[in-house]
């Protein structure tokens, strides 16, 4: 089926202020806390694989 409303580019570019705020939140989550980066990245990759996320 072809979408009637094609979206060009990254939809998140529609709201740059929100995306910047998300990056600050994600950066805090990633850079601080007691869980080491290897564990965080392992969990991230597993979650991305299970949810078929390309990130």
């Amino acid at each position: 089926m072809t979408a009637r409303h094609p979206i060009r580019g990254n939809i998140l570019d529609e709201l740059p202020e929100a995306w910047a705020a998300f990056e600050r939140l994600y950066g805090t989550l990633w850079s601080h806390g007691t869980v080491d980066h290897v564990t965080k990245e392992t969990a991230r990759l597993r979650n991305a694989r299970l949810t078929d996320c390309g990130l």
Partner: protein
Amino acid sequence: MSSATGGGGLADRRRRSPTHARATNGAGLRVRPDLAAPLDAYRAALRDGPLDDGLLDRCEALVRCRIDRSAEAGEDGGNPRERAVLAFADQFVVDPHGIDDGMRDAVLDHCSTAELAVLVQWLALADGMARFDAVLNAATEGEA
């Protein structure tokens, strides 16, 4: 966002109304208080976007209802725009892969691309925080 702790048993959380949905983001912030400020800023940035607060609140309540029953889902949308958005939200929380072009187009029939961008981010945030709280509240209740 409220700094309420979101304590209480599951039965208490089930009785909460949709307007209390935002007050349950407590469990995660108890273990990571440094996330409160950037989380508040992100929520504020999304609320400053083109979707009205009432619809955002209804979407969040729906997510909370589906994940941990801490809010009431409320009535189906009163107009085609609300119905399309709430159907999208319902499918997002149950299985986002079930959102096809037709369901997305149904939203875009009534919303701009910018509104859709806010909607998906808002749903992702609500979904994540609800699951976060469900897991951590369950763990806390198990320790009690």
